[in-house]
């Protein structure tokens, strides 16, 4: 008897039921499952009795690349059911796929990801044919809500169709030829007894053809872009057999470090993979489908959403509930679903509960993650679908590698003794290393290490830290849980930070925090994912001020850091580039009323510094930046202070290609025509960027002071008083010594001999004097009105 092939979708309850039923009916001698073959000797570990979801976590490191990947399993994973039910039925169960360290899995983070990208074209056409929004809706419609009769045939037809049009790449072909090898071995060894093969549906048609073709010794071309002649040499012949008749599990190359371990997993993580790396969405909902069927799951979902909304004080009336239920039932009937599907319930709830215009499309209409600005009811619906289940490993499970790594690192760093406190000098290499270990534990959320003193941010001139280490309840459990992030402490911390950056809000504070954590943990060079994530977070920030602060801090560390070892490093480089581009974009769009936005002006200064000192990192040229600055300085809609700053930025960068913005004196006169307070704002911007324009040597500088002196002198008293606060603020940018120099120039212009310093000192607060002036003015006006002014 030849093998029975079941093509499944990972994390599909319908497929899991099919696997269970098939095992019951077929009583196979061998059950072969798509999964990491290196775990075959340790299958008992998997079946110890964990609370699912758990995942097989694999790590790999050699000189060229490092990779980590997960194979998540939950109660309704067909692979899990095959494992469990196969064992229970007395079959020999084996994983038959290549180990996660094999190059065929490079860049793949989730072994059980849907291979959506490759068959997108076919599923798109099917979606159009069945008039549904997304492949998930299509899948539910075709398989999850349909009765189980004929499921296997429908799955076959579906996967043959999608595979028939998709081209498998070399990696898929390598995996398939390896899996085919296992199937052939199993058929040989079984000697006529049935063999069941459970793999992803995408591989099933090819696998079937390869196995059939392999027997005949010819090419197994399925018309699906696999089994081409090129496969033969690298495929079947490339996999050596072991002495027991089964294929050998390829060992990692010499010198490489690789391993696979069980780690606890959660529905949140299962749901969190985005794009093609994800499996089926809404694990909480499908868990209920698996346990109680679609009707109960639909009821449960409705109830869960309403409970959640009511607990958040979102009004849900009985009439809304009636409307939601009747809408879902109507949708179920209209769409021809024999039982309610996930989107029927969600659509019904959305129709009945949302009485606003939405900012973002409903997330289940396409395969997208929840975006900021989603309606609160939608957020609760997605959360209710996701479920909060967290897996737990059986206590006898060997601890994941992180646990051993942490113990070793703590011992090596001499941080092992509990109940101790450590004072670390960050300028000392050994202490810095110890600090990094502790910070990595901190970002992983492992309790028991608390920092009581230390630098708070990138420009905090504190170089010592104080840590209190002590026994903490839950430390071991937290470590095992953190084991899901990676095999060693640094990798795990980098991944945790990546996730933190990914989930973080679009605020500069959160970003700066993550960035500084990355600096403290010293994980910058380890993870491209973290760099990408931070750079993409920078690109969504919306306020120039805080973003400018991030840029200034990052630039400062990049240029001058002697402590954390991040100077000239890639982490800050990517942030500096992203922030500079984003800031210029934001600044050109900035609008606002009068007044001086100091953080925004500092942001412009940060851009200037980045262009001056780190031009090599930037993807935009100084000439482009100068062009932008010139446009802002000429944009009459832009805030005055920003225009002044842009003018200063332009002069700092100008190389003459964009034309001369005009002599400062002319520009200042034009600005002054709009009023003294506009002039003040504008000057504040200019002085933030280019003080030396005024105080520096040279005729131009002299004349700018002269021009300003002339302009201020011509102001009427009223205009002067109203513009005074802005003007004062502008000149506050000068340190006392420069102010003194300006005062000297003013005295010289008037040919008065006197102390410049004395001019800067007044008996009272100048604003008080100004207010006195206003009062005096008012009094004399009132007196004049009533003819009470003394004849003079």
């Amino acid at each position, binding site marked *: 008897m030849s093998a029975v092939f079941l093509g499944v979708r990972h994390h599909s309850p319908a497929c899991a039921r099919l696997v269970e039923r098939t095992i019951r009916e077929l009583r196979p001698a061998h059950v072969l499952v798509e999964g990491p073959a290196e775990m075959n000797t340790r299958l008992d570990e998997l079946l110890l009795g964990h609370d699912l979801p758990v995942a097989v976590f694999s790590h790999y490191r050699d000189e060229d690349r490092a990779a980590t990947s997960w194979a998540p399993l939950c109660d309704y994973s067909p692979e899990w059911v095959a494992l469990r039910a196969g064992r229970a039925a007395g079959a020999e169960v084996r994983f038959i796929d290549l180990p996660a360290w094999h190059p065929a899995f490079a860049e793949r983070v989730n072994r059980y990801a849907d291979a959506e990208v490759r068959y997108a074209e076919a599923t798109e056409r099917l979606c159009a044919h069945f008039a549904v929004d997304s492949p998930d809706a299509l899948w539910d419609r075709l398989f999850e809500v349909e009765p189980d009769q004929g499921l296997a045939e429908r799955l076959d037809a579906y996967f043959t169709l999608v595979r028939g049009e998709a081209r498998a790449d070399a990696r898929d072909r390598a995996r398939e030829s390896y899996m085919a090898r296992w199937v052939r071995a199993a058929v040989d060894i079984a000697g006529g007894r049935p063999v069941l093969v459970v793999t992803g549906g995408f591989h099933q048609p090819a696998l079937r053809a390869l196995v059939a073709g392999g027997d005949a010794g010819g090419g197994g071309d399925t018309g699906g872009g696999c089994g081409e002649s090129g496969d033969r040499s690298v495929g079947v012949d490339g996999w050596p057999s072991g002495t027991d008749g089964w294929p050998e599990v390829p060992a990692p190359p010499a010198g490489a470090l690789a391993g696979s371990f069980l780690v606890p997993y959660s529905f949140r993580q299962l749901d969190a993979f985005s794009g093609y790396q994800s499996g089926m969405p809404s694990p909480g909902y499908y868990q209920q489908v698996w346990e109680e069927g679609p009707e109960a799951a639909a009821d449960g979902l409705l109830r869960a959403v309403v409970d959640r909304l009511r607990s958040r004080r979102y009004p849900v009336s009985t009439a809304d509930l009636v409307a939601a239920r009747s809408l879902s039932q109507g949708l179920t009937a209209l769409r021809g679903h024999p039982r309610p599907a996930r989107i029927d319930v969600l659509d019904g709830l959305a129709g009945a509960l949302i009485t606003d*215009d939405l900012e973002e499309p409903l997330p289940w209409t396409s395969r997208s993650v929840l975006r900021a600005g989603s309606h609160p009811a939608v957020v609760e619906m997605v959360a209710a679908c996701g479920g909060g289940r967290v897996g737990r490993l059986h206590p006898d499970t060997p601890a994941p590698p992180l646990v051993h790594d942490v113990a070793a690192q703590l011992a090596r760093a001499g941080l092992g003794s509990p109940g101790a406190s450590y004072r670390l000098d960050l300028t000392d290499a050994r202490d810095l290393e110890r600090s990094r270990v502790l910070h990595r534990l901190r970002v992983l959320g492992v309790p028991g290490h608390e920092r009581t003193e230390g630098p708070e941010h990138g420009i905090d001139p504190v170089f010592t830290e104080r840590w209190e280490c002590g026994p903490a309840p839950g430390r071991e459990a937290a470590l095992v849980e953190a084991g899901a992030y990676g095999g060693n402490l640094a990798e795990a911390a980098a991944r945790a930070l990546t996730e933190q950056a990914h989930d973080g809000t679009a605020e500069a504070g959160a970003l700066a925090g993550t960035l500084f954590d990355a600096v403290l943990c010293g994980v910058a060079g380890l993870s491209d994912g973290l760099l990408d994530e931070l750079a993409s977070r920078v690109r969504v920030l*919306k306020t120039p001020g805080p973003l400018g602060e991030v840029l200034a801090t990052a630039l400062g560390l990049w240029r001058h850091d002697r402590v954390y070892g991040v100077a000239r490093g890639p982490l800050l480089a990517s942030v500096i580039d992203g922030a500079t581009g984003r800031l210029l*974009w934001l600044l050109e*769009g900035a609008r606002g009323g009068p007044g001086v936005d100091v953080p925004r002006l500092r942001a412009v200064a940060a851009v200037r510094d980045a262009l001056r000192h780190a031009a090599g990192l930037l993807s935009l040229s100084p000439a482009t930046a100068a062009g932008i600055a010139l446009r802002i300085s000429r944009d009459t809609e832009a805030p005055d202070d920003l225009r002044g700053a842009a003018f200063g930025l332009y002069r700092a960068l100008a190389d003459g290609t964009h034309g001369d913005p005009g002599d400062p004196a002319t520009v200042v006169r034009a600005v002054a025509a709009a009023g003294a307070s506009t002039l003040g704002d504008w000057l504040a911007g200019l002085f933030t960027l280019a003080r030396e324009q005024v105080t520096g040597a040279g005729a131009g500088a002299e004349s700018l002071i002269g021009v300003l002196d002339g302009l201020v002198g011509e102001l009427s008293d009223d205009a002067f008083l109203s513009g005074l606060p802005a003007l004062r603020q502008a000149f506050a940018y000068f340190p006392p010594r420069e102010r003194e120099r300006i005062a000297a120039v003013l005295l010289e212009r008037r040919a008065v001999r006197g102390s410049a310093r004395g001019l800067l000192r007044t008996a009272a607060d100048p604003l008080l004097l100004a207010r006195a002036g206003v009062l005096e003015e008012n009094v004399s006006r009132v007196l004049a009105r009533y003819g009470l002014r003394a004849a003079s």
Partner: protein
Amino acid sequence: MSGGAVRDEVLDGAGPLSVQRPPAEVRYAGELAALRADDRDPRPPGWELSLRAARRFVIGDEAAGISRKFVGNPSLVDRALVTLATSRGLMLVGEPGTAKSLLSELIAAAVSGVSTLTVQGGAATTEDQIKYGWNYALLVAEGPSTRSLVPAPMLRGMAEGRLVRFEEITRCPLEVQDSLLSLLSERVVAIPELTGPDGMVFARQGFNVIATANTRDRGVNEMSAALKRRFNFETVFPIPDLDTELALVEAEAATLLRRSGVEPPPDRDVLEVLVGTFRELRAGAGAKGGSGPAGAERPSSAVMSTAEAVSVAHAVGVRGWFLRGEPGSAADVVACLAGTAAKDSPEDLARLRRFLEQRVPHRRGPQWQALYDARHLLAD
């Protein structure tokens, strides 16, 4: 006037072509008849088609020769139709130019066979344009009677059991909006001037309301909670993926260009640049309150809809052909964008310039490069 009468009137004379834009039930009379003939599914009372047939009419069914008329999520159409079969009205909200009115027209044509029972909302809309008014000559001569009564779309929709479309409902004064309250909950209009059974018009099966509202002028926030509760809201979004939008713009622009006597079809790469620009500006402008890539900015006052993209594509083609005898180029796109994306607002012009200067150089492709090189055509 029933649907049949409209149809006859439009089809009379020189045929439908003499009318600039016949209503959906006339344009797609053949498809509707075919759907009605094959319709085996149960129909809600008062409906001309079953829900499934109405859905096929809107979403299209290639095998049965039904064209696709609405490019959007099919699930939106599902929800809209099921809503109309219940006792709540349907409120379509969204940015201008997202085909809300087209959708409501198609649904009304499918469900009631008539899409012309339409109230156009505006600042000057009054209650008699919604419910009923009087023929004052007859009113003075004969007193109030059914002869002197001039029924408005709502009253007719109720009496005939049909869908009534209420366009731009949020542009009406709030008091006028609230006149729908009793009508939607009690499903009856009292005419106090008439006595006897004529004094109460009860809604027949099949009556319901599809309202549309624009998120731009005046959002739905000001609507009274009581009225909101009587509607199910559906937000219609711009076409989510580039390829679909591009295909739509290409097809529509090609039709318009042919009608304008332009021979070459629009260049696909140029269209891609055009649609890409529209999508980018829309993403930057559309989101309010802090989401989207540039959420902190004030929204653009220009409408960057697909319909607007079609009209720019049309203008680009006309320009290229009649000025130079070739298909429009990326430079024409810049020239035409100034008039559309910026209208006469300097702020929008600045936004467009910022996009051309800062974002376009990062795009790859010869046409994007050409667009960047032509940026000086944007007049100051």
